[in-house]
């Protein structure tokens, strides 16, 4: 069950999502080293002319799925430039974020290369990560580095 935001042409959205799949499928050799840090556009190696038939712009698709708590929605926004996907954003709108998922629903998570944004540019309350690790551990690593340099 899918719905589209009214101002967007549905055909282009489908084409765009197909393109995302194609990029995800064939980008491995090119993006291995740069994957984690770059959001630079990559080109589709298969048929550039086919890609160029998509109009530049930003497209949004909303997808609904059934959770035990009711209907949940996820929005996928992607940006096309010169027929190439340059950005994908996924926004979840879980009514019940802890809704228990059934098997198979996890498969719809998109495996896309992630792009880091500066935390200072985000309006957030907290940072969830592991950078503040144990002081003892960090001290030990520093000691080993010093030993290795001696």
């Amino acid at each position: 069950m899918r719905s589209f935001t009214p101002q967007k042409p549905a055909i282009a959205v489908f084409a765009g999502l197909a393109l995302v799949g194609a990029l995800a499928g064939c980008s491995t050799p090119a993006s291995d080293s740069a994957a984690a840090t770059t959001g630079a556009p990559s080109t589709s190696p298969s048929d550039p002319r086919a890609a160029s038939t998509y109009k530049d712009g930003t497209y949004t698709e909303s997808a609904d799925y059934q959770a035990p708590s009711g209907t949940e929605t996820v929005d996928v926004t992607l940006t096309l430039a010169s027929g190439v996907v340059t950005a994908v954003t996924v926004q979840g709108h879980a009514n019940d974020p802890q809704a228990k998922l059934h098997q198979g629903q996890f498969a719809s998570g998109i495996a896309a290369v992630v792009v880091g944004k500066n935390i200072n540019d985000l309006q957030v309350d907290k940072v969830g990560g592991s950078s503040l690790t144990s002081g003892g551990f960090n001290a030990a690593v520093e000691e080993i580095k010093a030993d290795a340099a001696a």
Partner: protein
Amino acid sequence: MKRSRQTLRPSQRSHSLSFEAIGTGWQLDTVEPIEPALAAAIADRIEDFDRTWSRFRADSLVSRISKTPGVWEFPPDAPALFDTYRRLYAATDGAMSPLVGQALDNLGYDRTYSLRSSGSAFAVPAWDDAIGWDGHALTTVLPVSIDVGAAGKGYLVDIVSDMLAAAGHEDFVVDGSGDIRRVGPTPIRVALEHPLDAAKAIGVANVGAAICSSATNRRTWGDGLHHVIDATTGLPTRAVIATWAMADTALEADGLATALFFVDAELLAAEFSFSYVRMFANGTVEFSPNLDGELFT
């Protein structure tokens, strides 16, 4: 040793209590100040927890258990932790185990942080071959090195949250170095820290209860050596480099964040209610469709 402070948005929770405990930084953000007596009680409670569970303390209960088999009485905080571990152990087909302490020691993640591998993988004993848990006592048939590092800190975040709530606090955040419990009327926005660049985030999650994360890159001390051990091989995991799990409790979120290194999420979804994000070594991310938040991809 710490990253520079990130710029966070202004908060109604204007009172903040920061301290070091179990070797890491804690921050409790509250609307009303935390009374000194409550702060002292929290410190005592954390010390009690550490005295039971710390593998790195010679006087801890788990250190004594590691030396000789026997029947060991545990304090009242033990059942929730053992039960959660048992569920995770079953859901991961034995990969996630509380019996990885010796494997971590052998790899150098030991009491003295020697960070020098003994060169051999340790065969982690199967749960039912080594220990029996009856709800309050643990029977061990051989010396076992219990390590609850994969869920223990999350559980401690829950315990501290419960103490704040019991004292009348209704709007607060407990942050145990990135393992976070939110209690209050509105969710908080939590940046998902990029595992390769602490100044950046790969997304933002709206968290109304608990979020915990795990990443292998931050505690790495040699080629392929880190602290997330697969109990079926005794060796560190490789393909997944960071995970975030959101659940009703930090205990479950912490355990799930580790379990997501071992198995795909659908295996865990049969047993636990959660949402998640995980990132792989090739820079791609995977997330659950019930994720409340956004990813920058």
